[in-house]
């Protein structure tokens, strides 16, 4: 049978399609930084003999074509929509949960139990050394969104045994552990999160971080734990006694609405959205306590001093969570209160102890990015707060901790088992 016409149709359409891909990719301008992926895309590789022989040119050429292909996000979106339509519950390491929520997927095989327990032990040792010299340590491990929203996940979704992880943490840390599981689950099931905050949840729907309200729940539980450890007699007889934080009674957190939550941006598509780029997802709101926006304090990071922890230029960018401090740094110092100017100077001298003029103490936070939106709640409770990100900090945390009244270890629980943490490195030094 003669099939010439059929053959020509297929040949011509295929050639046109391929030509469109190649020419289209060639003529569209090169993209430098990809907001969605939070990384620089591969630029056109340089053709040199060396690079060809050691294979660098070849690798870069492949990356270049993948990164710069015409309509790149459209391809990714097509893939995600196809998978979602076929009922695949996880794409690119992200669960597609109910109500347009995306949740990071951490399975039993992903969670490094050995590293997790090792890190717990390190923190317990740090706690003992702090307590021996009159200090205090609290550890807040934030449950995963997959745990808090487990009823919204695809059916039978695979998760690591998070309850066991919390049991391990309680075994290692005792009542120093601040466990948010109950508070967060209640806030989700009784609808208080939906009622009280603009975002309506304890985690962003499209980002791996907790929302402003989630951070508030952390703050409330933190105050409760401080009170339990610092006002020991109150539970027995209601009497006050001198405590580690300067003899001040630690109050319970004010209701969320009293803190005048303020929406910084209602146009936030977070990191998990970037993983799937599904058009069915809706934007989030970034919320922060109103008092923190007007408080007087100094922030020192990267050798610069600022009078606000809010880096508003990030509200015009993709990653709006970076409005808090502009991202993560090895060390961030915050001096709060009247004597700010002087304190900042002495801070650079490095020999000062906490400013106790107003009876408030100093706090060292060993943290990941969860702390960035949490710290604004603390501005009224401390005169000095220092945040250390052990992923980047090269000094000794154990030595540094000696200058502070209290230490708070604050991590997302899955990050706490992460390889980038390097807790042992910074603690042993």
């Amino acid at each position, binding site marked *: *049978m003669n*099939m*010439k*016409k*059929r*053959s*020509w*149709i*297929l*040949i011509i*359409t*295929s050639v046109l*399609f*391929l*030509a469109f*891909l*190649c020419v289209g*990719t060639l003529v569209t301008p090169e993209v430098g930084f990809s907001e969605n*992926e*939070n*990384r620089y895309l591969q630029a056109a590789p340089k053709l040199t003999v060396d690079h060809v*022989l050691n*294979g660098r040119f*070849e*690798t870069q*050429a*492949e*990356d270049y*074509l*993948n*990164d710069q*292909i015409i309509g*790149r996000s459209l*391809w*990714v979106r*097509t*893939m995600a929509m*196809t998978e979602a339509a*076929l*009922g*695949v*519950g*996880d794409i*690119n390491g992200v669960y597609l949960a109910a109500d347009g929520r995306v949740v*990071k997927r951490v*399975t*039993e*095989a992903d969670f490094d139990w050995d590293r997790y327990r090792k890190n717990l032990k390190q923190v317990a040792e740090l706690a003992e050394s702090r307590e021996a010299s009159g200090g205090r340590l609290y550890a807040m491990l934030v449950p995963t969104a997959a745990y808090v929203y487990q009823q919204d996940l*695809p*059916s*039978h979704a*695979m998760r690591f045994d998070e309850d066991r992880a919390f049991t391990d943490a309680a075994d290692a840390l005792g009542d120093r552990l601040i466990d948010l599981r109950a508070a967060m689950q209640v806030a989700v099931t009784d609808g208080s999160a939906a009622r009280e905050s603009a975002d309506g949840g304890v985690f962003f729907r499209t980002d*791996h971080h907790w929302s402003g309200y989630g951070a508030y729940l952390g703050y409330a539980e933190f105050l409760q734990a401080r009170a339990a450890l610092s006002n020991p007699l109150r539970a027995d007889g209601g009497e006050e006694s001198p405590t580690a934080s300067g003899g001040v009674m630690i109050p319970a957190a004010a209701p969320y609405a009293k803190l005048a939550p303020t929406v910084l941006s209602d146009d936030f598509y977070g*990191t998990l959205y*970037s993983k799937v780029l599904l058009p069915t997802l809706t934007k989030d709101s970034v919320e922060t306590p109103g008092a923190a926006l007007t408080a007087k304090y100094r922030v020192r990071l990267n050798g610069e001093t600022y009078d606000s922890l809010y880096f508003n230029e990030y509200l015009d960018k993709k990653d709006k969570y*970076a409005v808090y401090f502009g*991202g*993560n740094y090895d060390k961030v110092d915050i001096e709060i209160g009247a004597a700010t100017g002087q304190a900042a100077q002495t801070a650079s001298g490095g020999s000062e102890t906490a400013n106790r003029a107003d009876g408030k103490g100093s706090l060292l936070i060993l943290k990941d*990015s969860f702390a960035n939106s949490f710290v604004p709640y603390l501005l009224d409770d401390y005169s000095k707060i220092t945040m250390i990100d052990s992923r980047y900090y090269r000094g000794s945390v154990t030595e540094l901790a000696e200058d502070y009244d209290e230490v708070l270890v604050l991590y997302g629980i899955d990050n706490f088992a992460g390889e*980038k943490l390097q807790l042992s490195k910074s603690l042993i030094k």
Partner: protein
Amino acid sequence: MVFSSSVFFMAFLPVTVFIYFLIPERFLRARNLWLLAASLLFYGWGEPKYIAVMAFSIVFNYVFGRVIGHLRETADRETALPAAEDNAKSLTGDRAGGDENAAGQAYCAADIAGNGNRKILRRAKLAMVLCVIGNLAILGFFKYTDFLIGTVNGLLGGQLSLLHIALPIGISFYTFQTMSYIIDVYWGKVAAQKDFIAFAAYVTLFPQLIAGPIVRYADVAVMLVGRKTNVEQVAEGIRRFIIGFGKKVLLANQVYVIWNEITAMDLEQISFATAWLGALAFTFQIYFDFSGYSDMAIGLGKIFGFDYLENFNYPYISRSITEFWRRWHMSLSSWFKEYVYVPLGGNRKGLARQLLNIAIVWALTGLWHGASWNFVVWGMYFGVILIIEKLWLLRALDKCPACVGHVYSLILIVLGWVIFGLTDFSRMATYIAHMFGGAAVLVDESFLYLATSRVWLLLFCAIGSTPLVKRVCERVAARLTAMRGGEILLGALESVVLLAVFALSIAFLVSGSYNPFLYFRF
């Protein structure tokens, strides 16, 4: 370079095809030269140093081919008429070899003719043996040295350090191709190729270079020097390429996720259902990966005017393992049959010898797949099954209803892939134990999630393993072409469907490179 990479389909392929068809058809040598140059670039992409191994292999086999061919011709010229006739018969004779080997006959006939002849032929044989040893030495050095050292260390408790020789891509395939050429020239089945470019193009031709099929020289000898462009062949090539691309990217790569996820679990904890799901996923993955690659190779070959033999014929619908191996990686099985099994005596030297021959062939087949003992075990596993089938089971299976044969074959095939997929013997043992009653749990959450969330993918894979889609397409095509103007409609429909598959594959491929960082840049 691999077919499923952006550099291949966005740069290498368009440029190669474009320039190939710019060269007028009458300059076939120039077209061959261009294909050779492109193939070397394809081969050296990422690891240029292996071009040297390839170049050596080409020159080595070209020279030996010429020498053996020359001796053969000299012998034939001096031989009496009957031998020449036999020789002619062998050229047109049964290509698949078989026990009535025409070449063998020609060889015997030639052997009788004269003392001088015998001397020349002995020299030809020596050259052939040397060349085969040379080829095997290259393959052995690059592929099996560390395996040997490791095995010796294991047996004698030695501490010899491994050499960590990187395996040149495709060396198992092109070594077998050149050996088929050398042996066929020696047998007088084909004339030695005098055109160096045509020969080099045969060895390096990028479509089948790195993952087969193993193209025997005799099958493409005519096309190398006298092929014509044919529109329908080119269109069929595009069709096959896109189908193969889709099989690889949309089915194999996706179903691999399941196997990968399950083997990352603590194997002591997996449930019965999860173990089987993983094994089934790997079964699908390896089929769609390999047969997809063969489809792409065959398709690309057709675009350049080569017709390769089929490599897969729906192996998972087999009713016995004997049938499975007639449908799976056919170019390898027929290679071993023709160049190992038959020369060893095949079935002509009694049952005991035949069984031994089968065992040898299957141990080698296993070893060919990889330098690790689990591949040898895998080969022997099939060798034993094939012997049992040959002796008793095939007759019994013939009497049973078809479904018995299907279930029997599938279980053994899936089990075989577990042996193939897990190189570590203790993990393999744990896994298999969990498949056959050793699991504490029958069904667990992981199974329910992985199976339900990818149920469509598994269904597509199951359907794709049968000729169903092909039959439906053929029927639609026949219906449409019978209509007036139906051929154009068919062409349009086919283009839309195939390009949609191609585009979706690209979407999945590009997404694979899409890797947002969760953490802020630093």
